[in-house]
């Protein structure tokens, strides 16, 4: 799995939009191939027989852009076309080398924040660890 894209897909939408806006002047002219919301079917693996089956569909927003031959893509949960476009802009900037250091710093900081949030959740989960004793 691509860690950078995975971070961009989960990062706070407002922070992503604010950062992506700063990239627009440097990116220059881009072509928007797709900006839409729709559904992604999510399959799951059955642990009894090993069969993959469809759990259901998830509402997602998608943006697909291009600058020359280089593609930028964003897909995030929910209906937020601005956020998916912002993700695509950051992806395109990194792929074309536009303000790559800034993009990397943004992604690294957000990855750390997401990891911290996950750790907070998991420390709360750990508080519920139980050691059963039988009598």
């Amino acid at each position: 799995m691509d860690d950078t894209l995975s971070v961009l897909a989960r990062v706070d939408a407002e922070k992503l939009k604010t950062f992506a806006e700063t990239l627009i002047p440097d990116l220059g002219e881009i072509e928007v191939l797709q900006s839409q919301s729709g559904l992604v079917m999510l399959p799951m693996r059955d642990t009894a027989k090993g069969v993959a089956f469809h759990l259901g569909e998830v509402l997602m927003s998608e943006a697909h852009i291009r600058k020359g031959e280089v593609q930028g893509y964003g897909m995030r949960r929910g209906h937020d076309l601005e956020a998916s476009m912002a993700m695509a802009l950051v992806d395109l900037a990194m792929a074309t080398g536009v303000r790559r250091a800034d993009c990397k710093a943004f992604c690294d900081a957000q990855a750390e924040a997401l990891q911290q949030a996950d750790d907070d959740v998991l420390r709360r989960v750990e508080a519920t660890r139980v050691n059963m004793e039988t009598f």
Partner: protein
Amino acid sequence: MAYVATRGGERAIEQSERLFREEMGGFDRDRVEEVKKSLPYLIDRVMGEASLYDEDLAALALAQTGGELYEAVLLLRAWRTTQPRLQVAEPVEQDTLFTHRRISAAFKDIPGGQVLGPTLDYAHRILATDVLQGALYAPDPVEPADTPSPAYQPSVSAWQSENDLLDPPADDPTKSNNIPDLTREPLLFPSKRAHTLQSLARAETGGVLALGYAAMRGYGQAHPTVNELRLAEAEIAVTHPDGRQFSAGRVKVSQAEVVDKKGEKLSIGYAATFGWNEVKCIAAATLDLNSPGAEKGSATEEEFFLYHTEGVESSGFCIHFKLPHYVTFQSSLDAMRDAKAKKAAKAPEPSSSEAVGQTKSEPAE
């Protein structure tokens, strides 16, 4: 279909919908947010039964229908059909689940240990009536542990397979785009396993519980023990146009395995659904466990439980009976009268003394 061969009543119909909606009044984004934040387990249930994951849409459907669950699920299922499918994600594997709760009733010392996670299993069920007197209900905060729980937990059934208690699952080479899909093809019997599990994932919770409970009480062949129950978040692994895979976010899922102890090895039933809904998963897994060899027409027979737990179809069929059936019903009455007349014509003439005191019993129309 002659069910609604009727005209008139347009004004009454319009006013009746207004009367329904008047009770809830108008609503806006704030109410949708409030529903979403205050009723997460109801949101989960609706998303699971609608087979559509989006908390905002589920909260909107609940706000719009005043909490009429069947109507809310119907709205979401209908809306779903208007949307394009962007991709089919990669299958979620159990060992990639970001796990919040994982317990086993079969073994206390499972690999990775047991975390209770969010649950009311051991809580006192006392209604907080003080709130109605103006008191604030403020739950005590969780005291986090110093170290985080492992995000990913091993599989109990894999450990049992290694110890020869269970037959390991077979490899399924089916690519994501080729997984049988009930939303695009009919449910036929014997059902493909992918159809069975998809159907249970979107089944109506109460229906699954009723039939699963019947099996648990003894109307099935196998008594379930919860091998593993998980509440978790699953990554949505999608593909960038250049081929890179990434997680486009997480969704809450529930997963249950139940086992039966007859024979030389354990037999296992499985179910999963969107959202956190343990009752549905345990009941559905119990039906899966019981379905092999189930008697035709029994509650644990696949065709029986899959058809009868499909919430939109079953609630729709149920409520259609209240719609005007005047033509079909009158036709049935005509047939009854005809049969009665023929029977009367064949019967011997009553004597004059027997005819005294007879009254006409035809109902008024």
